[in-house]
């Protein structure tokens, strides 16, 4: 007999990680019997610092996460990691390999790592990633890092979901700063240039600073026009450990700057808004499929023969959903 989700929630509040794991799985499978509990979990969360980490494939994100987590742990803070990789568009399956870079963390009770596949969500963020964050938050984790692959204009959702967004660029992956190509330059609260043990990293840092000086999002100002946050560029090396301390200090400062300003409140509202829209969108899509799949198959024949148009058909189908 499966343990009821409400019971898992009670265990979660005492820090039971087995309960955390199971609740995440139930969230991922959209288990209807767990929704109410997930709502309770949302309300019980809200203390953790949510850090989004994105950057093009191979830029050194997972290795950096591993370093960062070890360092943050020295201050006693508990750290959760949600590592997201894309699902295969063909089979829907995935190979989740970020953990390979984080093996040094797996015996530490104050660290929890969960791998997730994007599974059809286009924004680079797995649908239940934020629920997983709430679960870890409720279990007492202080910092939660979400690693996502940034590959295109769409994958900026991470910035709408995290308190602090870090974009990782690496030297040697091409002539330009790849974040520009990927369209993820503007979303950073902090720019990280990884692999600074490499000689060409200075150029990447200079390029990035030049881009920022040209006016993209260099500072966030409050209402009295006082800059609250200047987007910094921090060089790190996961080989030598250079810059890791500084990145943590910067990350903490960003959180501090937000906690003490109206902008922080604004951001929390934006996150809440984003989440509500996403949740409603998922709910709508599921209900649409559940309540119309049979009727759709009846209609496609007519539509394919052009006896019926998709606009009229959709309108009719939508009118059919009970809200």
């Amino acid at each position, binding site marked *: 007999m499966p343990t009821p989700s409400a019971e898992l929630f009670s265990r979660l509040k005492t820090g039971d990680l087995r309960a955390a794991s199971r609740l995440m799985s139930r969230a991922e499978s959209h288990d209807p019997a767990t929704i109410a509990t997930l709502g309770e979990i949302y309300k019980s969360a809200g203390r953790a610092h949510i850090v989004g980490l994105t950057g093009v494939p191979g830029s050194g994100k997972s290795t950096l996460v591993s370093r960062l987590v070890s360092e943050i742990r020295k201050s006693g803070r508990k750290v959760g990691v949600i590592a997201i990789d894309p699902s295969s568009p063909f089979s829907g*399956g995935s190979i989740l390999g970020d953990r390979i870079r984080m093996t040094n963390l*797996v015996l530490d009770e104050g660290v929890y790592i969960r791998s997730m596949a994007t*599974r059809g969500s286009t924004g680079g963020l797995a649908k239940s990633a934020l629920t997983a964050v709430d679960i870890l938050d409720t279990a007492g984790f202080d910092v939660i890092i979400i690693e996502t692959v940034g590959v295109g204009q769409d994958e900026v959702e991470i910035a709408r979901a995290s308190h602090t967004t870090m974009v990782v660029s690496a030297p040697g992956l091409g002539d330009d700063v790849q974040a520009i190509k990927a369209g993820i330059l503007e979303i950073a609260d902090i720019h990280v240039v990884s692999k600074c043990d490499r000689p060409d990293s200075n150029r990447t840092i200079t390029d990035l600073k030049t881009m920022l000086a040209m006016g993209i999002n260099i500072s966030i100002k409050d209402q009295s026009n006082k800059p609250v946050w200047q987007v910094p560029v921090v060089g790190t090396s996961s080989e030598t450990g250079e810059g890791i301390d500084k990145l943590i200090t910067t990350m903490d400062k960003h959180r501090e700057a937000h906690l003490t300003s109206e902008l922080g409140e604004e951001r929390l509202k934006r996150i809440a808004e984003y989440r509500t829209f996403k949740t409603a969108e998922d709910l709508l899509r599921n209900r649409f499929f559940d309540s119309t799949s049979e009727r759709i198959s009846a209609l496609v024949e007519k539509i394919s023969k052009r006896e019926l148009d998709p606009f009229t058909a959709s309108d009719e189908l939508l009118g059919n959903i009970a809200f």
Partner: protein
Amino acid sequence: MSSPIRVLLAKVGLDGHDRGVKVVARTLRDAGMDVIYTGLHRTPLEVVNAAIQEDVDVLGISLLSGAHMTICPKIMDLLKEKDAEDTIVVVGGVVPDEDVAFLKEIGVKELLLQDTPPAKIVETLTRLVEERGPR
């Protein structure tokens, strides 16, 4: 809506290549499963911790080094100790015939030894998860 079957593939022991595991990983992905791969030379405790955090349906242990008679019991004990006995454990790689009965006795659900065709692996995991039922 159900989720894909989650599988953790672990390479335990000293032998140094993982070509075989990677092929299995791709096969399972192509069958629609989510496969977590943890790299070479993992210890039983590392494997069990990862399996619990990832809440996998199936833990696949790959061994070539002949250490199965010590490693498998350790993993089964740790799963029990950490209240994760509902994890389905399968063993792949090389295991001599005379050890198979012992491994099954300690709770290994299935042995998928070297040369098991990919379709058979997919079929076996799918069946085992179905037999276990919802959790």
